[in-house]
């Protein structure tokens, strides 16, 4: 009894979608590297699976993290996802209650209102519940329409510009629920019944249309509902709505500790296709807000990479400040994906390259503590002399890795996609550190620190940023500082140190030991980028200055007498746009030693 001809578009669409999804997911999993498969095997029977289920309820259905961006935007996503899910789930329960153990085919559940007219029993409470859920989803659709007109009302300065595939799928999606409302209302008008919503709309239809007209449109409205559903299902895997299902395996795989690596793997597919193109990353991007660069933000980068038409100007126009990644409600590993995309464009393996490293060792001194200045610190010698002063005051025996010049840490090359070249530097530096037997490595450059942490295998050597090292010296009482409340500082979180390495508090506690700390408007996870990031090779000097000037404005607005940062590159960038004193953390420590 659960079949009518109008079900054909729905059935065809559902089958095509199911086959497409199965084919994709299975082939992606099959193509995973062996190590990743082992991780899955290890994780599948652990608590990671339970955690994943909980995360799926929170994020894929309720969209908790979007509520944090803007409550209305969160409600919109929640009503569409959770509402639709409940329609399906409660609909399933409804048919089960009506039909008992009898096996009902898929279309029987979806179009139950149509088939229910042939059943004698009637349980009105389900009509009302299903109507309430439909209203819940429809409110989300209405908000989505409204967002297209006035995105600001939902807390978004800009929304995503969609591709053709997205527009087709979007049109189908927007029609699904109104079509369902019309189909169920017409049914209520013809056969009676219906919940508070469909009965009311049905009643209104009875007033305006003749019984003959209602009879005539009865089948077509169900055909239309079935057609938009089928159309959406066919368009879905080729549009942004692929994220609806892909986020689920992504959450499992992520909790099984699969990661995006320096060369692209099949796991990247799950990450790429989980992007819902919500566009939250666009507003976070300073290239957009300060420079008006459009079409390069993470949402567009992912779109281009998904469609295999990623170009260098898009892949390379990014500061990799990590602000978008911090806000991404799906938690996509945006920076890592961009990096391994770059590696496919610029990576030119050449064994002869950097042969000149052989035998180079300009280090001096000896001690268990090594200090790696990094290229940028060598360009800001005040930081270097300040570190010398601090080491002397603490009585630390220091091995200076590169005070007289040395080899770069490799991160700049890595950021430019030359992974193989960068790895030559990794090899060289690891060998250098091991040869001198250090147990602690201090660096004043967050760029070096990040690559030391992530790309170097330095087991047995503790890695410290100089802010952590100085904080430790103070705690251990090896140095003491003059404190004066009338000295006020504001602190700029460098991207690579804060969002990049998660070091926020050590520099702050050091500053508080010297004077008062005033936070700028954007700080901690939301701090701005100075614009000089090595990751971006597209923007020109004037554009860098513009980004830096915007940051300077915020820092100066705090009224603090000294601007402090903990990255030599940020210091250089800020120094160009401020007339105020800009100091590295080590400098204010060195000049306030007791």
């Amino acid at each position, binding site marked *: 009894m659960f079949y009518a001809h109008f079900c054909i578009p729905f059935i065809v669409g559902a089958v095509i979608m199911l086959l497409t999804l199965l084919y994709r997911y299975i082939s992606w999993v099959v193509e995973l590297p062996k190590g990743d498969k082992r991780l899955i095997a290890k994780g599948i029977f652990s608590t990671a699976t339970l955690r994943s289920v909980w995360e799926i309820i929170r994020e894929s259905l309720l969209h908790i993290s979007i509520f944090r961006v803007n409550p209305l935007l969160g409600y919109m996503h929640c009503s569409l996802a959770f509402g639709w899910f409940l329609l399906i789930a409660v609909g399933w329960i409804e048919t089960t209650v009506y039909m008992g153990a009898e096996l009902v085919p898929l279309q029987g559940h979806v179009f139950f209102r149509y088939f229910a007219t042939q059943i004698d029993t009637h349980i009105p409470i389900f009509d009302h519940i299903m109507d309430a859920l439909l209203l819940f989803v429809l409110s989300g659709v209405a908000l989505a329409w409204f967002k297209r007109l006035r995105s600001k009302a939902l807390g978004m300065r800009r929304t995503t510009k969609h591709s053709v595939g997205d527009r087709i799928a979007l049109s189908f999606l927007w029609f699904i629920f109104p079509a369902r409302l019309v189909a169920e209302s017409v049914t209520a008008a013809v056969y009676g019944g219906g919940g508070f919503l469909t009965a009311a709309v049905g009643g209104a239809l009875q007033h305006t249309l003749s019984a003959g007209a209602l009879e005539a449109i009865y089948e077509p409205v169900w055909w239309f509902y079935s057609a938009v559903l089928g159309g959406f299902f066919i368009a879905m895997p080729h549009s942004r709505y692929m994220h609806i299902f892909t986020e689920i395996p992504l959450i499992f795989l992520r909790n099984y500790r699969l990661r995006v690596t320096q060369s692209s793997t099949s796991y990247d597919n799950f990450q790429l296709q989980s992007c819902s193109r919500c566009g939250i990353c666009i507003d976070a991007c300073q290239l957009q807000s300060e420079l008006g660069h459009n079409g390069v933000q993470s949402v567009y980068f992912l779109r281009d990479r998904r469609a295999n038409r990623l170009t260098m100007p898009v892949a390379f126009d990014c500061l990799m400040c990590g602000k978008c990644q911090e806000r991404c409600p799906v938690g996509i590993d945006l920076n890592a994906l961009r990096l391994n995309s770059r590696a496919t464009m*610029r990576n*030119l393996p*050449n064994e*002869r*390259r*950097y042969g*000149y*490293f052989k035998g*180079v060792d300009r280090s001096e001194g000896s001690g268990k503590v090594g200090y790696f200045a990094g*290229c*940028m610190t*060598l*360009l800001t010698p005040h930081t270097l002399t300040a570190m010398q002063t601090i080491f002397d005051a603490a009585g630390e025996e220091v091995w200076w890795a590169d005070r007289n*010049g*040395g*080899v*770069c840490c*490799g991160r*700049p*090359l890595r950021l*430019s996609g*030359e992974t193989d*070249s960068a790895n030559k*530097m990794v090899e060289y530096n690891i060998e250098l550190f091991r040869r001198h037997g250090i147990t602690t490595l201090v660096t004043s450059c967050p760029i070096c620190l990040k690559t030391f942490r992530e790309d170097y295998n330095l087991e047995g050597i503790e890695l410290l940023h100089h802010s952590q090292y100085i904080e430790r010296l103070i705690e251990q009482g090896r140095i003491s500082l003059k404190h004066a409340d009338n000295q006020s500082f504001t602190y700029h979180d460098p991207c690579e140190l804060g969002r990049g390495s998660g070091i926020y508090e050590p520099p702050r506690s050091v500053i508080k030991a010297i004077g008062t700390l005033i936070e700028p408007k954007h700080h901690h996870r939301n701090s701005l980028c100075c614009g*000089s990031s*090595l990751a971006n*090779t*597209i*923007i*020109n*000097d*004037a554009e860098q200055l513009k980004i830096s000037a915007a940051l300077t404005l915020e820092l100066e607005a705090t009224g603090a007498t000294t601007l402090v940062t903990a990255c030599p*590159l940020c210091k*250089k960038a800020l120094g160009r746009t401020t007339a105020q004193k800009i100091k590295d953390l080590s400098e204010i420590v060195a000049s306030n030693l007791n």
Partner: protein
Amino acid sequence: MATNFGFSISKPRVIDMDANNLRKSDDILASMPQLQSCIGCGACTASCTAGNLTSFNFRKVHTLVRRGEYTGVYEELNKCMLCGKCRLLCPRGINTRAAVMTIKRTLGDF
């Protein structure tokens, strides 16, 4: 009598602009017009991390490329570590890191 003064003078040579093929050089300039504002001050070379360890000299390499002398340029540019100090020092604000990448990409193994 030959005395070693610790330095040498480059051999005299002629750059024949009629014989040199400037097509690649023009391509590079077209994709990075800002290179035209280089005043040849050498700040890039003075600050260079690779230049500190080798004879790598970006000012020289860049000038050679501009004149259509491409031999050995690609190998020379592969000494660059892209650390970006030169970009911070360039008085003309040239995006030197992008320049290195552009020249490498255009010349390949010339």
